[in-house]
């Protein structure tokens, strides 16, 4: 009795996606929070569709790492025309798939570092930082944090992008001494969560004095919630950067639209959406500047970042050291 109902429902769901044959479709594979209703996705889609005469469709797939795994699963037959949301820890592997074509865009990027990647073009960037409450006496370096009895929550580098970012941060700042720093940090770490959300949630519940996040996180609380109680801790060693990039898929059936999108990505229309939806710095500062509130954020004196090839090369060793130090 029940089966026909289920089949009907299944068919209805399968047909629910409207078929758009007339207008060309540009498919952009991205991470979940980009395409969610609070992310940049909806505004970007509206702005691009105004000029392109096309239908821009975002396909969301977990976070940056899941995005790359998804692309690898789909292989050369992927329907994606553009992949948006990888970061420098992932681009070396992404490049090895040979699925990407040169983007061919020249733009005045406002990154604190030089950028000359032929395949991947940044759309936003940020610094990793520990975020705590303003009334708390902040440590001034990773070393000071490790020597203190301050409690922090971090993410697992094996399952989370910020977690991997911290691993690279410690590696970039301490090199061969990184394992020793991890050993000293171990007693500060309340717990390690699988993803950013769990860690941030625990921090907001008061489980730790600080959480690994971004220097831009306090801007969310300030602008969206009118709450100025959060601040990022500025560290003397410098802060590791996350640069988020997009690339054009080599086998795309919409090469011109894809090129158009890549150029649009570094234009004001796209870039001005980024700060208050993705809560990161735009890759090209819009003509109107950054939104009010971003001026209150800390600016690290030193930017740390590995090239994607370096990041890939040191990952396994760094991970082993991390696991050993924290498993004591």
């Amino acid at each position: 009795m029940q089966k026909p109902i289920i089949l009907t429902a299944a068919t209805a769901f399968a047909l629910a996606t409207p078929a758009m044959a007339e207008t060309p479709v540009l498919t952009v594979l991205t991470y979940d929070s980009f395409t969610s209703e609070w992310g940049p996705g909806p505004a970007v889609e509206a702005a691009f569709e105004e000029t392109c005469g096309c239908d821009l469709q975002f396909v969301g797939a977990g976070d940056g790492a899941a995005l790359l795994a998804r692309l690898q699963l789909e292989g050369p037959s992927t329907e994606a025309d553009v992949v948006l949301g990888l970061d420098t820890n992932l681009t070396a592997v992404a490049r090895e798939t040979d699925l990407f074509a040169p983007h061919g865009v020249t733009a005045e990027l406002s990154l604190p570092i030089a950028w000359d990647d032929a395949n991947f073009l940044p759309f936003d960037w940020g610094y990793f930082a520990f975020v705590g409450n303003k009334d708390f006496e902040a440590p001034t370096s990773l070393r000071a944090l490790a020597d203190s009895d301050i409690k922090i929550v971090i993410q697992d580098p094996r399952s989370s992008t910020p977690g991997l970012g911290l691993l690279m941060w410690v590696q970039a700042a301490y090199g061969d001494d990184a394992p020793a720093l991890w050993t000293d940090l171990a007693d500060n770490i309340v717990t390690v969560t699988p993803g950013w959300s769990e860690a941030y949630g625990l921090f907001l519940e008061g489980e730790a004095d600080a959480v690994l996040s971004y220097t831009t996180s306090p801007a969310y609380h300030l602008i969206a919630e009118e709450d100025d109680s959060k601040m990022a801790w500025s560290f003397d060693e410098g802060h590791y950067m996350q640069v988020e990039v997009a690339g054009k898929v080599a086998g795309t059936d919409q090469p011109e639209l894809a090129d158009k999108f890549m150029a649009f990505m570094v234009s004001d229309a796209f870039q001005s959406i980024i700060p208050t939806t993705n809560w990161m710095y735009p890759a090209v500062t819009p003509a109107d500047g950054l939104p009010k509130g971003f001026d209150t954020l800390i600016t690290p004196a030193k930017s740390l970042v590995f090239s994607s090839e370096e990041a890939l090369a040191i990952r396994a060793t760094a991970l082993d050291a991390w696991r050993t130090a924290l498993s004591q």
Partner: protein
Amino acid sequence: MAHSPVAINPRWPGGIVAGLVLVLMLGTVCAVAMRAEFQAGLGAADWAAIQFTVSQAFVSAATSCLLAIPVARALARRQFRGRSALITLLGAPFLLPVIVAVLGLVMVFGRNGLLNDALAFLGLPPISIYGFHGVVLAHVFFNMPLVTRLILQGWLSVPSERFRLAASLNAPIGRVIEWPMLRSVLPSAFLVVFLICLTSFVVALTLGGGPKATTVELAIYQAVRFDFDLGRAALLAMVQFGICAIAAIFAWRITSPEASGAGFDRAVQRWDGGAGRDTLVISLATFFLLLPLAMIILRGTSGLLSLQPDIWHAALRSVIVALCSSALCTIMALALALRAGRLVAVTGVLPLASSSLVMGTGLFLVVYPFISPARLALPITMLVNAVLALPFVLRSISPAVSKIETDFGRLGVSLGMSQGIWLWRIVLPRLRGPIGFGAGLAAALSMGDLGVIALFAGDAQETLPLAMYRLMGAYKMEAASGAALLLLTLSFALFWVCDRGGRLNADL
């Protein structure tokens, strides 16, 4: 699973369902393995993960079972106002999405939680929830209520004549009635919890406090997501099935078949037991289980107001998926229960040990060449959720079916009943309770499951748990806790309606 005395139950539908489950479980692992070039075997870190996984699952399952026995016993012996509501409410922790439950527990047992506030007030040193004991605590919170329900069913299925007889003969009830009943119910309950904890990953890592709390499921996650080493993912998924097989064999070895025999098929009235101790046990269990829930409700209430209208679409989608997969699951479980035997026993535990990430990836690989995965997101979610809930529903229905067959099968055959009449007039009316409970559980589990939807869904297929995670990912923790409350309420309402429907006019 002894052979039934008479063959009156239809067996072929169960065969089809078992085949489907096996294909879905093992076929997806094969699909993943075939995409990979096999390289190295398991490393030292993998073995450490396996060791941790098995030990935490064992301790969690043992603790859940040990604590559930006195609670179930007290509930079986006492009649009080609100008892029925309490039994239903016991289902709630099990239905919570993992991250919601973890935050609920942290609000009570965490560094800044109620318990430590109370300890500080009394001048006592704080306790930490993070570590091996935290993992066990959370798993007990999730699973002890489930075990309580399973054992309670065992207790209530003992015919009241036996208790009356025991009471009139002044026989030791514990030894002659309760112990044999527990021997037939506990091993399978233990196995279920052990397997649930085996695939735990968010709880284990978050409350385990660091990488020493790495489970096999996390290693799989890492293999798929960060290393894109599908061979290793498939290998680890097979390791999980292997552990599952060993555990299942052990559990089946020590299970003794139920030996209480037929009675008049009505529930229990008891004369034994200490009222004071039962009351204490029930109060403690209620307190432990409901306090975190109360915190979640408290926190979520303010968040409800900040929810966008879109959340209702996601909620509706989730309810439809949950109802469909519950119906599918119940039909499959019934077919399997009627078939019984080893094959069914295997299909009844295998889904518990499956890695949803490997299954999702396998399905993706199978589906992708033919159709856009987003189009199949909801049907696939329904099917996968139904299969994942199958062990629980089967566990609820199966003992009742075999008991009906033992008790009434000979009668049915001697009266020359057709299979249809047998099912319709004898089996189904007696299965109302277990089917209601099972269907409710399946619906609620499907409601809260993130599982494979995250791999497949586009924007148009967003379900409520996915929406909740996306809210959390966008800093909107308050709205997320509102969504969590909505999810909890809807899951629980689905469970309550089904369970209640099954229990109408029954004594449970």
